């Protein structure tokens, strides 16, 4: 059904395929970016990806970019400030982010400060506060999960307040996203699985949340189908470039979907448990996704029923009676999670993930204040959040 009003914005140029990263120097030239700062982390350096990038610049007869490779697993305001100083001192004019969600969010935070010429990142916290385009940002994701290469959101930890702050603006969108299967080939199976579940959650939540629209739906369902068809191939053979590229595309498509449709309670719970217990985001998504689908079943039965086509394939969809399809969609996600647990030990409950039960009330308090809850089809108060967390702790739906 067409919503009475919606907005959809996805201007990121996406370059996907074999040796796609070879286009990086040319794309920077097109953006008139003469001196990029590469933001990455030590793990990416060890994979050889940065050496590959350096060789590309040599081949293109361009100066080797300035490189910052100390981004920590969690983006924070002090890291953003440190990199901002490096950017300014080196006279850079653009940023290339090579890494996962934390690197990309850090790059977005840096881009705000260097483009606005400011020192206080918190001035820009909120939604739609930025008023001017930012300097060119090119993103090369090395996980197939967050979709940050195509989203208008950055989550950065505010050390002063001790919470993750959200920055949301169309100006945060990168100019170019490059999906090269070589960037994710060395991703170990547990990370492949958890980041794919993150992408799956983005797609499913985008499909059922209140900002959904026909365009975001198209991206979401395409992403779900790609994940279903390729995740286990990638886990079986990590060097399967076709599967890796398919998952990278799925993550990007899911990112486009949720950037325009937002996410809901699964992310509210996931952000909260990530903030309180530092549980990796992908694992939190994997644990909470069936609970989110189950809780929203009352408001989104038709949509969840339709998702069975993409989660289970056309045969599964046709053989399942109409009135059982929504529940069967949830079962498909549970089966997927069980399989991932068997293959690579992904936890299926908060207890398995090492989350202490006494922290659940604190997590619930943060979850109900997370901005993403606004877009969930149903309200979630403290008691409901706590009840879901307790079930998720025990592993009972």
């Amino acid at each position, binding site marked *: 059904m067409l919503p009475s009003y919606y907005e959809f914005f996805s201007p990121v140029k996406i370059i996907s395929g074999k040796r796609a990263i070879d286009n990086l120097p040319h794309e920077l030239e097109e953006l008139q970016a003469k001196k990029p700062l590469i933001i990455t982390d030590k793990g990416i350096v060890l994979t050889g990806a940065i050496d590959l990038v350096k060789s590309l610049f040599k081949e293109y007869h361009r100066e080797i970019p300035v490189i910052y490779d100390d981004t920590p697993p969690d983006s924070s305001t002090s890291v953003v400030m440190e990199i901002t100083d490096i950017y300014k001192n080196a006279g850079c004019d653009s940023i290339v982010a090579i890494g996962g969600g934390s690197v990309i969010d850090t790059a977005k935070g840096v881009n705000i400060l260097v483009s606005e010429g400011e020192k206080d990142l918190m001035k820009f916290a909120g939604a739609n506060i930025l008023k001017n385009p930012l300097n060119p940002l090119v993103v090369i994701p090395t996980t197939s999960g967050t979709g940050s290469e195509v989203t208008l959101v950055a989550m950065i930890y505010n050390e002063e307040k001790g919470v993750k702050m959200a920055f949301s603006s169309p100006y945060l969108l990168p100019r170019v996203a490059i999906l090269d299967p070589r960037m994710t080939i060395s991703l170990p199976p547990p990370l492949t699985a958890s980041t794919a579940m993150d992408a799956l959650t983005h797609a499913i939540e985008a499909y059922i949340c209140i900002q959904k629209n026909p365009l975001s739906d198209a991206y979401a369902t395409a992403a779900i189908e790609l994940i279903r068809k390729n995740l286990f191939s990638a886990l079986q053979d990590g060097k399967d470039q076709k599967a890796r590229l398919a998952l990278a595309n799925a993550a990007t498509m899911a990112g486009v979907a949720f950037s325009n449709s937002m996410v809901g309670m699964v992310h509210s719970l996931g952000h909260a448990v990530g903030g309180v217990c530092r549980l990796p985001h992908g694992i939190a998504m994997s644990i909470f996704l069936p609970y989110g689908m189950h809780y929203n079943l009352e408001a989104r039965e038709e949509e969840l029923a339709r998702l069975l086509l993409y989660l289970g394939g056309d045969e599964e969809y046709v053989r399942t009676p109409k009135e059982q399809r929504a529940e069967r969609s949830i079962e498909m996600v549970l089966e997927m999670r069980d399989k991932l647990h068997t293959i690579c030990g992904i936890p299926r409950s908060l207890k398995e993930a090492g989350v202490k039960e006494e922290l659940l009330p604190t997590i619930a308090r943060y979850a109900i204040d997370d901005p993403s809850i606004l*877009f969930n089809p*149903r309200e979630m108060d403290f008691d409901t959040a706590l009840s879901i967390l307790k079930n998720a702790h025990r592993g009972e739906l």
Partner: protein
Amino acid sequence: MKAIVVFPGNHLIKRVVVKVSFFILGRALQSASMFDPTIRKELSPWEDGYTIKMEVLPKGPVMGWRKHKGTLKYVGGSISNANLEIRFKNLTSAFLLMTPQVGVAQGFAENRMSVKGDLSHSIVFVRILNVVISYLYPDFIANRLLKEIPPLPYRKYYRRAYLYLIGIPFGK
């Protein structure tokens, strides 16, 4: 062909409706924050002096509240920078939400407003607004605006009458 100069219209009726709605909402929230325990509990973590502003871009109307002794005091249009600012993109967006044709959550989903400040505080503010909306409107209207009507005490009809007869006109 001569160029035609177009002067911006005033949209007088929409502007007046939004201004009046702002006043009603402003006073209603002030009054409800005095008697509703849910609202007071939501406000309790915020310090006294915390300010919230609602503004229609580009040139108003504007209104706001300041936290004072556990409640929200309506300060009308005399508010500049605030801790939390909700900005309606244009007069039409404000008109749709204030009239009320579009709910707050739906308004955010349709990108009709921007938020300056801590987004988690905006979620608290939306919960407070949901309580006030369920006092202001009968269920058949509130159901269209809210995902779920928050549980209110059996005295809600008495409190609704209080809001309309005393809270809004006299600010008590």
